[in-house]
């Protein structure tokens, strides 16, 4: 009867689990960190670069001025 079933693995179960989940840990936490770096940090840096690439401070100032938000300068058009 004992020849019908294979002998179950009885040693090194914890070691096997630890090795498996060490890889899992690196994937899980590394994946999260990679998501934050490439999904949040790098896009934010690119967004600031893009914003300043063609930013015209004078044009923006004149647009804001015409809306009347400034206290020190008045709009040119009434």
């Amino acid at each position, binding site marked *: 009867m004992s020849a019908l079933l294979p002998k179950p693995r009885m040693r090194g179960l914890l070691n096997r689990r630890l090795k498996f989940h060490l890889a899992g840990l690196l994937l*899980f936490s590394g994946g999260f960190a990679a998501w934050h770096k490439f999904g949040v940090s790098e896009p934010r840096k690119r967004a600031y670069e893009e914003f300043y690439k063609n930013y015209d401070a004078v044009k923006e100032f004149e647009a804001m001025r015409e809306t009347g938000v400034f206290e020190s300068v008045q709009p040119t058009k009434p």
Partner: protein
Amino acid sequence: MAYPMQIALQNASSPLMEELLHFHDHALMVILLISTSVFYMITMTLTTKLTHINATDAPITETVWTILPSIILVTIALPSLQILYLMDEINNPFLTIKALGHQWYWSYEYTDYKDLSFDSYMILTKELKNGHFRLLEVDHRMIVPTKSPIRILVSAEDVLHSWAVPSLGVKIDAVPGRLNQTTISTHLPGLFYGQCSEICGANHSFMPIVIEAVPISHFEDWSWATTQ
């Protein structure tokens, strides 16, 4: 400025604040790395019946969990120190403004100009105009030129206050009898809002700061008109 449901830092309006934003992203990435690792390890520990019956000696593990945190700390400390020293760089300010905290308003003195100083009180909610922000608007804003390093000297006349403008990356304590110095610089024209950041009495929440940045030619026109 701040917006509803905001979780993260405000958008940067100065080069220093941009650096701080990027550093915050870097530090948050490290925090996420550690937090997710610990969460995973605890979950794995709690979901098994397997155990080590003779776990009395683990030199390799102990070495790894000593060296690894110190490496992580160095990766956080290096950019942090870089920004810290960047903040203290002397960069030949064009202008000096004194910001003095009172209970419960700020006063600004432009001592580079003759007789240019004024108080800055919060505008009450019932007196707000259309488009104004509640608890953030003031009757006299601090006008500054764009693209110019400006030295701000902060002090207080009575109790502790703190002069803070998040989008410029500035927060300086206003201590009675002490003069604290910082430098601000913005490339963007516009309005930048802040609030007193040190508890100072009943109206601590009602003494905001508003910086109005305009091109230097308009700043000169304003300063000339104000001193006449």
